């Protein structure tokens, strides 16, 4: 047993070594865990935000950069989606139906809000913002962000339909800007008779969402309604609706609007108006900068006003526009709320408008001196925004709208009489809404 002793020694040495190694290793391991835990908590949180590709550019260069500079703990990851907004809606829908949506902040069109809220995909924001703070936003924008009395979205940009008219032509003919439907038709006829212009009034008549956006403005002017969101009453077969359709059909029959108007979308009407072919145009705010561009045939010869109405009534302006909500599946609701607060703040909106030029959701910005200096028509735009009307804020809006689009288009293109078409539309809408 001569070798016993050194062996024991060796064993002891190894055991000591082992303890040492274990000790060093576990200390090292714990250190890594601790370090990464600290490091991770310092890592910025990433918020995903989906938007159309053309929108993403100004966001990334403008407010996202400013926000990240001020909040180093939050990163905004903008995902560029398809250009068509209905495809964007489909992307959101399929992501949410599958359960865990990858989007934290939801950039929403006004007409999606009730659907997303009813499906339970949006966080209730009612208690996060005071009534005082909400008052700074235009009323219709806020109204369009609610569903069944709760707030689900903070408006960020507005969009309203309005009447564009040619100031030079009206002056030459000694006419005032039209106030009523009759004025509009008469002014157009006068201008056409004096050979000042080929066509009077162009509007969007194709079967698509833009058709109902245009139609609710006329409907509002006649005092009618589409669907009452309170009690889901349907007003499509009432006489006001038929009067509104009669007015639109008149514009075609009396040669004020080109017959092709029933196939036009926004861009076709904008090009028509901008090339100097028509005296009046119903369209959205994006037309203004394009029509006033250098080299445009109507540069400096246009003005805007709210849509005309029957005497004694004010015309409606269909409200579009975007706002931000928080998805229920997000893991960072607090950070998302901070981002919303910044993006909808006065400062951020002002910078964004001065750089990218869209219509604000905050009323004070319409008359802000810096903004007015750059966009002199904004005070007039405020007038339009204040007459904004909502498309019915109901959960089943998309379906309701598709029904009206089909039958309205059928009535305007003489495939059905207006009475038949609206009776059928009203019945289908009632059947849809009364269920559930």
């Amino acid at each position, binding site marked *: 047993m001569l070798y016993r002793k050194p062996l024991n020694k060796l064993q002891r040495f190894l055991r000591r070594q082992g303890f040492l190694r274990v000790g060093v290793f576990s200390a090292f391991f714990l250190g890594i865990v601790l370090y990464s835990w600290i490091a991770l908590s310092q890592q910025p949180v990433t918020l995903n935000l989906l938007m159309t590709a053309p929108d993403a550019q100004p966001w990334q260069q403008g407010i996202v950069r400013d926000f990240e500079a001020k909040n180093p703990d939050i990163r905004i990851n903008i995902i560029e989606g398809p250009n068509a907004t209905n495809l964007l*809606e*489909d992307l959101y*829908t*399929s992501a949410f*139906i599958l359960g865990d949506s990858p989007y934290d902040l939801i950039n929403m069109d006004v007409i999606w809000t*009730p*659907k997303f809220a*009813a*499906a*339970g995909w949006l966080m209730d924001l009612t208690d996060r913002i005071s009534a005082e703070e909400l008052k700074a936003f235009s009323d219709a924008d806020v109204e369009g962000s609610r569903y069944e009395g709760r707030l689900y979205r903070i408006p960020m940009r507005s969009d309203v339909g309005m009447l564009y008219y040619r100031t030079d032509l009206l002056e030459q003919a000694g006419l005032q800007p039209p106030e009523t439907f009759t004025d509009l038709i008469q002014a157009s006829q006068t201008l056409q008779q004096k050979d000042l212009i080929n066509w009077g009034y162009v509007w969007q008549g*194709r*079967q*698509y969402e833009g058709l109902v956006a245009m139609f609710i403005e006329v409907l509002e002017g006649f005092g009618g309604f589409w669907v009452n969101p309170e009690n889901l009453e349907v007003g499509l077969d009432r006489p006001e609706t038929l009067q509104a359709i009669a007015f639109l059909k008149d514009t075609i029959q009396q040669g004020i609007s080109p017959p092709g108007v029933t*196939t036009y979308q926004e861009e076709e009407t904008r090009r028509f108006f901008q090339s100097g072919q028509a005296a009046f145009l119903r369209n959205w705010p994006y037309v203004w900068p394009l029509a006033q561009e250098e080299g445009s045939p109507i540069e400096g010869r246009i003005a805007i006003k709210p849509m005309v109405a029957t005497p004694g009534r004010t015309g409606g302006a269909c409200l579009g526009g975007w706002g931000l909500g928080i998805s229920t599946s997000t893991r960072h609701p607090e950070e998302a709320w901070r981002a919303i607060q910044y993006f909808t703040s006065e400062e951020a909106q002002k910078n964004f408008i001065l750089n990218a030029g869209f219509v604000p959701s905050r009323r004070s910005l319409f008359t802000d001196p810096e903004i007015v200096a750059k966009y002199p028509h904004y005070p007039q735009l405020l007038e339009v925004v204040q007459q904004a009307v909502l498309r019915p804020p109901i*959960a*089943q809006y*998309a*379906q309701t709208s*598709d*029904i009206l*689009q*089909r*039958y309205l*288009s059928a009535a305007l293109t003489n495939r059905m009489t207006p009475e038949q078409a609206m009776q*059928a539309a009203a*019945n*289908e809408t009632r*059947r*849809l*809404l009364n*269920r*559930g």
Partner: protein
Amino acid sequence: MFNTKTIRGREQRTAWILIVPALLMLLFVFGYPILRAFWLSLFTQNLGTRLQPVFSGFDNYSRMAGDGRFWQSFWVTIIFTVSSVVLELILGLAIALILNQKFFGRGLVRTSAIIPWALPTALIGLAWAWIFNDQFGIVNDILLRLGIINTGINWLGDPTLAMFAVIFADVWKTTPFISILLLAGLQSISPDLYEAHSIDGATPWQNFRQITLPLLLPQILIAMLFRFAQAFGVFDLIQVMTGGGPGGATEVVSLYIYSTVMRYLDFGYGAALVVVTFLLLILAVAIASLLLNKLRARTSGTT
């Protein structure tokens, strides 16, 4: 249950035991989804009910009766199916007859003839949407150069022309499928028959009418059945080319069901639409297979 005393009874029992796994599989894969869809169609489950199912009996079905859009999409589907299947059949038969002849490079031509069918439909749809584009499309370019038209035609923007365009694209894509199927049928016809017939003094047309067509009928019917079921459920091609537009002119039933479920989140009504379409399709296929069996029996001379 079975009379195990006789050989026949025992065989029957074995047969059933062997068949049960396959039956269970079929029940699980086909039976369950169909019954589930039918069950769901008895409920209202949409945004109005906050996506909660509420039992509503046959309400969804009565709503369908007054749904103009469903009937319109149904007619669009019928028009699309009938015109594309008929055109494909005529063209497919012509191509099959040509490919059945002996000529130089036949193998190469036969292989390349299936290419359209082998390509992914969504890509084909995208390609055809560009071909029919009103500004940059090659169809307008050719017509303009030939001096047939003066300004570009908006193919996909006009209801009738859009329908024509999607049918054209579908015919282009699936004719090869029919021609390959019919070619196989043609090759199984014995040349002796033609020889004998020719000796009797028959013209080529008589050959075709009296030999080719009757003997090819089973293949023609099978091809029709396949294509009918496929064309009736067409989705990808139209979704990519027109999205159902303009104004619902090319909206087939499958596109409407897709909108109802995916856009409107109207699950109950969507299920009712699926059930009705499914029953109508079953009816059509049943009639077709009845005809098929009758014809088969006649051509094989057993009746």
